[in-house]
């Protein structure tokens, strides 16, 4: 009797295992795991970019738009107890061949990564140190600290500064000014897809996701801003699910396997008992 209970439990455990795995398969089937769209988002492991002789966070590219007398630097630092990446621009004078002196820290996204970032929630900690200046008539910016999404045709800017939040829609350019206190850390959220929708732009084939800091010739000086904790949360993507027929097929296979296993166990037990009683007779 005890032996029968043991065998029944062993059989039930295997059947339960099979049914649980099958149920999980039915429930989870179609949820696609997508690799993170932005890689090394915490910007660690700095390597030398030999083309520019610059220390660059692994998998990121740094672009410097500067005149001969300007000075730009990108470096890791700790500001207000938080490890961060600093973008610094020193525009020495007004007389320069460049209108803008800007630094970009960017990653290019296309394909699966692009699709993922368009449906992701992006959060970032920002530490602005200067006010946003723009032409009151044309609304064109004169400096910036924030994030740029550039698809080659359209430009989406998130600017973090202490002015009242507002949106500027310019030709092929949309600027989201997000009120952020100066000289302290604030967490901000970015939703690229909704801004593309609001601007009436189509989803592009590729984008550059860029941390940006810059100033025009009108505002020379020493400008710095800090970023930290860039994080992209990609929600699970349900691409498909099993049809009722497929679900029934999976469960039928389970039933067949469990039945065969049960029959095999019963046969095995019978044979063992027969062998046991033969031995006893001998």
């Amino acid at each position: 009797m005890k032996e029968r209970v043991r065998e029944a439990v062993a059989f039930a455990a295997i059947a339960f295992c099979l049914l649980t795995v099958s149920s999980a398969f039915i429930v989870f089937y179609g949820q696609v795991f997508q690799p993170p769209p932005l890689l090394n988002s915490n910007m660690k492991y700095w390597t030398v970019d030999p083309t520019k002789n610059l220390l660059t966070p692994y998998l990121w590219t740094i672009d410097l738009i500067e005149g001969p007398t300007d000075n730009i630097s990108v470096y890791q630092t700790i500001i207000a107890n938080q490890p961060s990446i600093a973008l610094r621009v020193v525009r020495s004078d007004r007389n320069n061949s460049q209108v803008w002196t800007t630094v970009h820290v960017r990653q290019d996204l296309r394909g699966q990564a692009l699709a993922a970032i368009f449906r992701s929630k992006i959060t970032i900690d920002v530490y602005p140190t200067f006010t946003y200046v723009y032409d009151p008539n044309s609304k064109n910016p004169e400096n910036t600290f924030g994030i740029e999404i550039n698809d080659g045709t359209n430009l989406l800017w998130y600017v973090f500064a202490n002015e009242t939040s507002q949106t500027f829609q310019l030709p092929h350019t949309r600027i989201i000014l997000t009120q952020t206190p100066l000289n302290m850390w604030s967490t901000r959220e970015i939703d690229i897809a909704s801004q593309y929708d609001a601007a009436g732009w189509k989803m592009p084939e590729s984008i550059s996701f860029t941390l940006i800091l810059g100033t025009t010739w009108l505002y020379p000086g020493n400008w710095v801003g800090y970023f930290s904790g860039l994080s992209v949360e990609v929600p699970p993507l349900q691409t498909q699910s099993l049809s009722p027929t497929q679900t029934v097929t999976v469960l039928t296979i389970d039933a067949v396997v469990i039945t065969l296993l049960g029959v095999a166990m019963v046969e095995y037990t019978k044979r063992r008992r027969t062998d046991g009683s033969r031995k006893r007779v001998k």
Partner: protein
Amino acid sequence: MHSHASTQHSDILEQFTVRISMLFAAGFIFAEGLQNWIRGRVETHPEVVLLIILTYALAFALFLLATLNSKDVMKPRDIAFVSLILTTAVSWYVVTQIEHPGSYQTDALAFVQYSAILLSKGINPYPQDLQSALSMFSVSPEFITLTPTGNLVSTLNYPALQVIAFLPAVWAGLRDARIIIYVFEIASIVIIYLWSPKEVRPLALIPLFAGSDLAINFSAGSIADFIWILPLVLMVVYMDRPLVAGIMFGLASAVKQTPWLLAPYLLIWFFKSESNLKLKSRLERVGMFAAAAVAAFLIPNLWFIFKDFGAWYSGVLTPAFGNLVVLSQGLSLITLANGVPLPPAFYLVATVVVAATLIVEYYIYFERLAFALWAFPAIILWFSYRGLQNYFIFWTPLLVMSAVLLYKRSNLERKG
């Protein structure tokens, strides 16, 4: 008369296994000789040329010895073992000093050694950002681990004993700490070999050297799993003493999380393996093993727990509960290869339910499955969404010991 014939037969069989082990060692040496010729940069490293010539000479000597028509073949019976150890040393040298000099093939070892450097200065490595280790040990970008949010892992993700194991290398001023892994590997293999009865030693070697990954490539390539294998090997040696076995299991668990998977099966082992004992004695065995294991796990971790419990907890439990990108040679390959769309949650359910089923089956069919427990972690991890090759093959030394234990038991039954 019958006994004499039986002894003669076993002598002949033993002679045959010694010959086969020599041929096996020769085959392994040829395979490694070719690999060393490919990776050894022979045009600029004359010492590699010399080593390759010597290893080939050794292989030819083994060919001749194995086929010598004389009983004297039994005199150098351990030559296959010695040859395999020498070959391992040569290949280890070529991989670590010629092919990848000063550069680690895993970020994990870089973080562990860097943590040991910090610890030698009295700094608790768990709350530290260890990213400097990646450039210090020239970790190739392809071996850097990412989380699902795209962050690069740069913290210590192992229990503290793994770091402590590398302290001697730091104190000795060794820039390349892979020698520590090699020492643990050789110690494990030597113990298994010497612990095995003389007549089966040649056979015990074969699974250990059946592939270069276990014997050479993984350890030389900076996978530090032999550091927890050694205490588990010692645990099997002392399996009849729950206190010592518990200490060894605790030490193995204080190196890496992988041995934790064994815990429920080992508790069943100590409860059921001495079935002739009374229930109270069996429970005492379980209690002694568990208490010793917990104490041996906690002692090396204690300082770090007191210093910063939060950092230690998240460092030690992060890899145990996932939060890393999907990468696998296991079942989740069907997803990784863009075939079957399933999220990590599916593989987690499968892993947990398979582990639970194996616990039930192990308890019920203990008489039959008792010695299979070393295979269980490999099977369980094969279902996980991060089922890597080293999660499977590093159980081989312990499975060899299981086979030897079964042999010893059969021998005792035959004699008894």
